[in-house]
């Protein structure tokens, strides 16, 4: 069994991990979540038993690290007035308003949305990250879209 040098994982996947974390983490905590995900992956790497689907393995860790930022935030009182969620002058390409709605979706739905639209993963590959079937991934995405449309229309 041959695991590639960890640097190769970093070079091949750091953009995907960063984008997934930026999409899913609490606002302003994407970079921190990505950093934590990489440290966890580096720590666990030698104990992997095979090198199949390393990208899926990394994205699973990244999605969990992003979810943890919401749990940590929920546990600590945040002075909302002093800490605006949308940084002033944020680039329009981030579409913060929409992504605030995405982050309010049930966890598996928002992960499915990010995998499908931000990383452009086919449902077969997204399903492996989600630990489910391609059909279920497709359903998660369509349920999420339905929920988002309701919110956007409001």
């Amino acid at each position: 069994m041959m695991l590639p040098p960890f640097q190769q994982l970093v070079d091949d996947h750091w953009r995907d991990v960063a984008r997934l974390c930026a999409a899913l983490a609490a606002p302003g905590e994407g970079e921190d979540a990505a950093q934590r995900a990489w440290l966890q992956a580096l720590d666990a790497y030698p104990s992997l038993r095979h090198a199949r689907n390393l990208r899926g393995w990394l994205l699973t860790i990244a999605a969990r690290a992003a979810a943890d930022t919401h749990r940590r935030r929920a546990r600590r009182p945040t002075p909302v007035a002093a800490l605006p969620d949308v940084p002033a002058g944020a680039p329009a390409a981030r579409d913060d308003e929409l992504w605030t709605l995405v982050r309010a979706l049930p966890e598996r739905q928002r992960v499915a949305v990010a995998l499908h639209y931000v990383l452009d993963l086919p449902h077969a590959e997204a399903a492996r990250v989600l630990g489910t079937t391609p059909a279920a991934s497709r359903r998660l995405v369509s349920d999420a879209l339905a929920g988002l449309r309701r919110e956007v229309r409001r």
Partner: protein
Amino acid sequence: MNDLESRLRGFEPPVAPPVLPDSDVSFTSTDTPVGRLVLAATEAGLVACSYRPEEEVAERLARALSPRVLRSPRRLDPVRRELDAYFAGTLRRFTIGVDLALARPFARQVLQAVAAVPYGDTTSYGQVARGIGRPRAARAVGGALNANPVCVVVPCHRVVASDGSLHGYAGGLPAKRLLLALEQRPAGS
């Protein structure tokens, strides 16, 4: 409604690569007068100084030592400083630690013997073989030196054929010639 999907696809956050700590094996590449060398270090010392391509060296390190192989130029700064000084002719003896983990036991014995050949001096394959008590193993000594994982720093270039011809070198004969000529220059010139 497709508008929603295209908005989701258009998400372009600013991203930055992760900053990772030094791990089991660190590597970098450096340009020298004998070409580009790939350097790698473990906690025990310099484990590779190689003429091979970076990707090939990294894969070998992952297979032989640990998959936690990361690019880390900073960790190899002391090695680069000594190599620079060596190529400038101001350093005649490397002080950095060497880790022969990539060499098999016989090769390790050969490389340890070769490490004792002084700067500016040369020896022959047969002499090295005799020195390690294996007088008939000159050919195997050549093989071990050709596979030297820590070139330049473990000076396999100081071993030449008994008739004085250069014989062979992992970095090619011009590199071997350059290293031997460098070591013939008077100190500090």
